[in-house]
C-alpha cells in the first residue's frame, strides 16, 4: 500500500477510537449520579411508580454495556434523550433544545474563522519575514498579552470601547427569528471581534514560529545561496513545507475557538451552545450537558483529524515516497 494511504487510514482509525472513547466518558456521566437524583429531578411529589418509570426510561435497570449500546444507537439516530429540566411536567427532547443553538454557534464560529484565519496567517507571515524589526516586536508584544489575558477581559474591553464609550453596537447579541442577514451580522459583530482577537493572537504566534522554522532549514539557505529569487524561495521551497504546520495551526486555533466560544457567548448573552451548556451544568441537566460535550468533543476531534490528514496529504516527503 502507498505509505500515504496507510498513514491516512491509521489516522482515521485513531480518530474513530478517540470518538468511541469520548462517547464512553460522556455516557458514564449518568453512572456517577447519586442514587436519589431521580427524586430531585422529578420533584418531591413523585410517586415510587413514576420514579421507577423514569429509571426504566434512562435504562438504569439494565446492565451498563446494554445501556451504552441503546444510548449510542439513539445518539447516532439524533435522539439525545430528554432534558431533566421541567421533567415532571413536559419533557423536552434534548435535540430540540441543542440543535437551534448549535446553528447559532456555527454561524458565529464560521464568520470568526473567515475573518481570523487570513488575518492571522498574513500577520504571522509578515512577522516571520520581518523578524526582529519593530513591526515584529510590536505584534509579538500585543499577541503575547492577548494570549495571557482571560477571554472575558478581551470581551469586556471590546464592549467598553465599541458599546459604552463609542456606542456603535449593543453589548448584548440577541438573535430573533425575524432578523435578516445584515441585522444578524450587526448583532454578532462584537462576539466575532472578541473571538477573532483571541484566536488571531494564538494563530499568528504559531504561524510565525512555523515559518521561521522552515526558513531556517538548510535547503532554504541552499536555494538562497544559489541565487534563487526571494519570492520563488518563499513560494516554491518554503511554502509547500510550511503548509503542514500552518494547517495544524489553523485546526488548533479553530479547536481553541470551540472553547473560547463558551465564555464569549456568556459575556454577550448570545443564544449559542456554549451558553446552553453553562446553563445545563448549573442546573445539573445531565442529558443536555452530555449532548453539548459530545458536540464540542466531536468537533474538536474531527478538526484535529482533518488537519492531520491534510498535512499528511500535502507533505512533500510522503507524496514522493518510493
Amino acid at each position, binding site marked *: 500500500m502507498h505509505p500515504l494511504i496507510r498513514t491516512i487510514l491509521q489516522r482515521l482509525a485513531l480518530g474513530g477510537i478517540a470518538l468511541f472513547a469520548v462517547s464512553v466518558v460522556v455516557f458514564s456521566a449518568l453512572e456517577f449520579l447519586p442514587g436519589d437524583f431521580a427524586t430531585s429531578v422529578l420533584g418531591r411529589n413523585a410517586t415510587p411508580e413514576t420514579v421507577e418509570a423514569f429509571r426504566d426510561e434512562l435504562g438504569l435497570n439494565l446492565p451498563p454495556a446494554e445501556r451504552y449500546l441503546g444510548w449510542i444507537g439513539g445518539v447516532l439516530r439524533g435522539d439525545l434523550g430528554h432534558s431533566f429540566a421541567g421533567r415532571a411536567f413536559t419533557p423536552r427532547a434534548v435535540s430540540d433544545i441543542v440543535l437551534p443553538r448549535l446553528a447559532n454557534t456555527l454561524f458565529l464560529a464560521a464568520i470568526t474563522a473567515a475573518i481570523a484565519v487570513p488575518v492571522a496567517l498574513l500577520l504571522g507571515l509578515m512577522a516571520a519575514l520581518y523578524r526582529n524589526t519593530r513591526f515584529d516586536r510590536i505584534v509579538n508584544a500585543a499577541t503575547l498579552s492577548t494570549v495571557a489575558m482571560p477571554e472575558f*477581559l478581551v470581551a469586556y474591553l471590546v464592549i467598553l470601547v465599541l458599546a459604552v464609550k463609542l456606542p456603535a453596537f449593543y453589548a448584548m447579541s440577541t438573535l430573533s427569528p425575524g432578523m435578516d442577514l445584515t441585522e444578524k451580522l450587526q448583532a454578532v459583530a462584537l462576539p466575532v471581534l472578541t473571538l477573532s482577537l483571541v484566536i488571531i493572537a494564538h494563530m499568528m504566534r504559531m504561524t510565525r514560529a512555523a515559518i521561521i522554522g522552515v526558513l531556517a532549514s538548510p535547503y532554504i539557505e541552499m536555494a538562497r545561496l544559489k541565487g534563487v529569487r526571494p519570492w520563488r524561495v518563499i513560494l516554491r521551497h518554503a511554502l509547500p513545507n510550511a503548509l503542514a504546520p500552518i494547517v495544524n495551526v489553523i485546526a488548533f486555533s479553530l479547536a481553541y475557538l470551540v472553547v473560547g466560544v463558551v465564555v464569549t457567548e456568556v459575556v454577550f448573552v448570545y443564544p449559542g451552545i456554549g451558553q446552553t451548556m453553562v446553563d445545563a*451544568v448549573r442546573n445539573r441537566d445531565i442529558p443536555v450537558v452530555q449532548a453539548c460535550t459530545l458536540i464540542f468533543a466531536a468537533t474538536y476531534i474531527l478538526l484535529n483529524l482533518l488537519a492531520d490528514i491534510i498535512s499528511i496529504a500535502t507533505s512533500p516527503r510522503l507524496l514522493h515516497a518510493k
Partner: protein
Amino acid sequence: MQNNSQGAPAVSRRRRSLSIASASLAARIGMIVVLIYLLVALFAPFLAPFGEAQVASSIPYAPPDGTFLLGTDQLGRDQFSRLIYGARNSMGIALATTLISFTVGGLVGVISAVLGGWVDQLISRLVDVIMAIPQLIFALILLSIAGSSIPNLILIIALLDSTRVFRVSRSVAMNVAAMEFIEAAHLRGERLPWIIRREVLPNIMPTLVAEFGLRFCFAFLTISALSFLGLGIQPPTADWGSMVREASALIAYGNLTLFIPAGAIAVLTISVNLIVDWFLDKASGLRNGQ
C-alpha cells in the same frame, strides 16, 4: 541535551549562574509583580480593611470614597477588601491545583518513561483519550456530575491538567532515560526511586520549572473562567473571576469596576509568562554552554 551526559552534578553547577542579576527588564518587572501578589495573598487579613464576606455598608454599589477605596458591591461588601482576599483565594486554589497536577503528572510521566513497555503504552493511551476532549468542556461535564465546591474544582482541574504535565515530563524524561548514565545505574543495580531522584529529576528540572509557571497560568485562567461562568469558586468566597461576573451587569452604565479584578488576573498571568520566557531563554543558553 547532549552535553548533559555527565549527569546531575553538571546541571546543578550550571544552574548557579541562573541568577536574578541576569534577568531582563521585562523579567524583573514580572518578578516584582509576582512578589507583590504573593505578599498581598499572604498578609490579606492584615491588609484588608474589612472582612472577606463582611457586609460593611448599607449602600450597595456605593461609589469609591475614603472608607471604601473601590466602592462597595451589590451586597454592600467592600470591593477593595474582596480584591485583597481574592488574591489569596484565586492564587491559592490555582497553586494547589498546579502542585497536585505536577506531583501526579510529573511522577507518572517520569515512571512511564523510565519503565517503558506496556505500562507506558497503557498510560499514554489513557492520557490521549482525556486530551481528546477540550479541557474546559471536560471540566464542565465533571462539575455537572460532582457539583461545584473548592475541593472538587481543585481535583478536577488538577486531574485534567496532569495529562499535560504527564506528556511534557514523559517526553523530557524519555530523552534522559536514553542516556548512558541511566543504563549504567540500571546495570549497577540501582532501584527505580533512586534512579528517578538522583539521575532523571535533576536533568529535567529546568523544563519542569518553566512548565510549572505555564501550567499555573493555565489553571489560574481556567478556574477564573469557571468562576466567571458561575461554576467555579462560589460566593461568599471572594475570588477575581466571580468578582468580574458580579460587576459585569454594571458595565452597560459605564461603571468600570469589573476591570479591576479582570486586570488583576491578566497582570499576574502576563508577569508569570515574562518570567518563564526569560527562564527558558536562559536555560537553553546554559545548555548550549553560554
